[in-house]
């Protein structure tokens, strides 16, 4: 069999086809329903999060169960700097980098004290960190109202670029784009950028250093890798991705509250990374897509099915979603511990018995 990957013509044709599909996708989705464009947008947001967490968990091997905290930091940074709460309305291209930077600082704040910890201890501390951030968001409404507590922040500015407002419809060269479609293209650009960063970093000096740390930290240090810097860099980079995703979430949603940043969300992103295959960028994207679309599809099928069968809704789709979630985590660990698309290294690692 001839290896089609070696033929440039086919490869470029493939790329072109994918690009075309991605470009035309929102127009097709709008035919089904405008809600699906929004769902797709949230799926892309999850891809951004999963890609960010993949740096921490997949590349550097540091299990972070409080990842959603960085998402929260990015989201709140955006909401406070571009919203009515403080009366600040900075443009998004200033706020997003600020949010990402604040998230990165939080990443280092989390990383620095936990450098010595590994494996499940690290998991628990990061989990605690995530909870602490959420509790603060919930309570920082007194004595000075910063986060507005459990009510959350509303009427957050949408993205504005030039004269184009991303929240409403606008026509461009005779084609009408609704707000979520514009966000789709923006998210697509950001996603592609993050994918490129991820791919490029994986085989760079830094990426190889992370891999070395993941495999054997002592050996990595012996080879001259500054493990402290590298681990902090992993936390900071992962957090930056989370911060960017959080800022975009704020703008798309227009409203945020601590409810959106609970532990389950962290677990969900971890599940995406694990399900797809830790360390494999395409696997992680697949995991994020599966875990964000399957529940939506369930929502649209389970409810009518139950109404048809029993005449009323017996089990909420949300519960089914969570049950499938939990079951998927257990079954994947039992039968495909390296995920659906395992990275080459993990595959090798997991098929060989632990010495």
């Amino acid at each position, binding site marked *: 069999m001839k290896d089609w990957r070696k033929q440039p013509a086919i490869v470029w044709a493939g790329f072109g086809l994918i690009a075309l599909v991605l470009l035309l996708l929102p127009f097709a989705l709008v035919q089904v329903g405008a809600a699906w464009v929004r769902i797709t947008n949230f799926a892309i947001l999850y891809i951004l999060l999963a890609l960010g967490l993949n740096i921490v968990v997949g590349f550097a*091997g540091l*299990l972070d169960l409080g990842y959603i905290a960085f998402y929260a930091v990015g989201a709140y940074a955006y909401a406070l700097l571009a919203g009515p709460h403080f009366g600040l309305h900075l443009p998004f291209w200033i706020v997003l980098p600020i949010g990402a930077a604040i998230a990165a600082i939080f990443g280092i704040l989390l990383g620095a*004290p*936990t450098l*010595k*910890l*590994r*494996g*499940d*201890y690290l*998991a*628990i*501390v990061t*989990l*605690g*960190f995530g*909870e*602490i951030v959420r*509790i*603060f968001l*919930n*309570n920082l409404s*007194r*004595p000075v109202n910063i986060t507005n507590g459990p009510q959350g922040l509303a009427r957050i500015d949408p993205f504005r670029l030039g004269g184009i407002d991303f929240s409403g419809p606008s026509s461009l060269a005779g084609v009408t784009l609704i707000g979520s479609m514009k966000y789709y293209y923006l998210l697509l650009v950001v996603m592609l950028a993050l994918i490129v960063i991820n791919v490029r970093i994986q085989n760079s000096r830094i990426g190889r250093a992370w891999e070395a740390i993941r495999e054997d*930290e*002592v050996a990595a240090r012996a080879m001259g890798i500054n493990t402290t810097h590298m681990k902090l860099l992993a936390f900071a980079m992962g957090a930056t991705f989370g911060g960017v995703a959080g800022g975009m979430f704020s703008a798309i949603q227009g409203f945020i509250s601590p409810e959106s940043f609970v*532990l*389950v969300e962290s*677990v969900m992103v*971890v*599940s995406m990374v*694990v399900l797809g295959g830790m360390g494999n960028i395409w696997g992680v994207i697949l995991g994020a897509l599966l875990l964000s679309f399957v529940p939506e599809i369930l929502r649209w099928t389970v409810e009518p099915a139950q109404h048809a069968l029993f005449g009323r809704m017996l*089990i909420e789709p949300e*519960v089914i979603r*969570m*049950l499938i*979630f*939990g*079951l*998927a*985590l*257990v079954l994947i*660990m*039992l039968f495909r*511990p390296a995920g659906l698309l395992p990275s080459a290294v993990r595959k090798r*690692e*997991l098929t060989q*018995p*632990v010495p």
Partner: protein
Amino acid sequence: MDIFVQQLFNGLTLGAVYAVVALGYTMVYGIIQLINFAHGEVVMIGAMVAFTAINMLAPAGLPPVVVVLIGMGCAIPVCMLVGYAMERLAYRPLRRAPRLAPLITAIGVSIILQHLAMLVWSRNVLAFPQIIPIQTYTVLGATVTQVQLAIVGLCVLMMAGLAALVYRTRLGTAMRATAQNPQVAGLMGVDINRVIAFTFIIGAALGAVAGVMVGTYYGVAQYTMGSILGLKAFAAAVLGGIGNIPGAMVGGLLLGVVEALGAGYIGELTDLCHLSGLSTWLSERCQADGHFILFGSNYQDVFAFVVLILVLVIRPSGLLGERVGDRS
């Protein structure tokens, strides 16, 4: 001073419960180095089962103690079964897998149990029926209820029972041997699978009783109660030195006290009106309000995590734990 003693008693009550839950974590960790995330859910299931039974029996006019004991009697076997099932189905096949795998499985099990409980008992809060006439005693200027005394007494009893089991019986010897070195213990004729299953079952039984106690103390039970309780108990286990049975007891009590005292005093400690001379803006605000509290008692849940992080950073082996090796 009154507040201090009062919070101390409240903290000890809660701490005793944390200690019992922490035992479930620490025993499992000591033997197979697994953080059984789902243990908190076992506690929750214990509380829910017991509350269902208690609510059914409440109108029967039995003495309250009997009702609560029957509730516990229903909860314990159910939780034992859950504990056994989860060990057998989810964790045993992964015993030789890399360390991340069972941890993620545990998260999955926890999600499954929580939502199964939601299916069974719905999202509503189960309330404890008003069958216990609360008696209060005044000790050192603080009020203590007989429920609190019963909780602490029962916890002490269970801890003593567990200590006797672990240090005085054949099964306990087998457990300690397995914790030290499973392979060698196996060679010495210990049935490791049985011992591990027993560890889960005992931990689950303790968790069931703890669930009933915490439910009785707060008067409510809900399907979400397990996760935060489990996390705090885990923090307690780490504080005492994970894998160490006396450590879990000390850690639990200490965490309960820290939490109660912290919640009692943090408002006063972070009241910026003590510094009102420093800025005119502050003194004006303080004149109007009297208090300018940065962090109030609603930050109570933060303490457990802060303690957890501090312990792991400063003394990763916990208060009573031995130096743990390089585990990843």
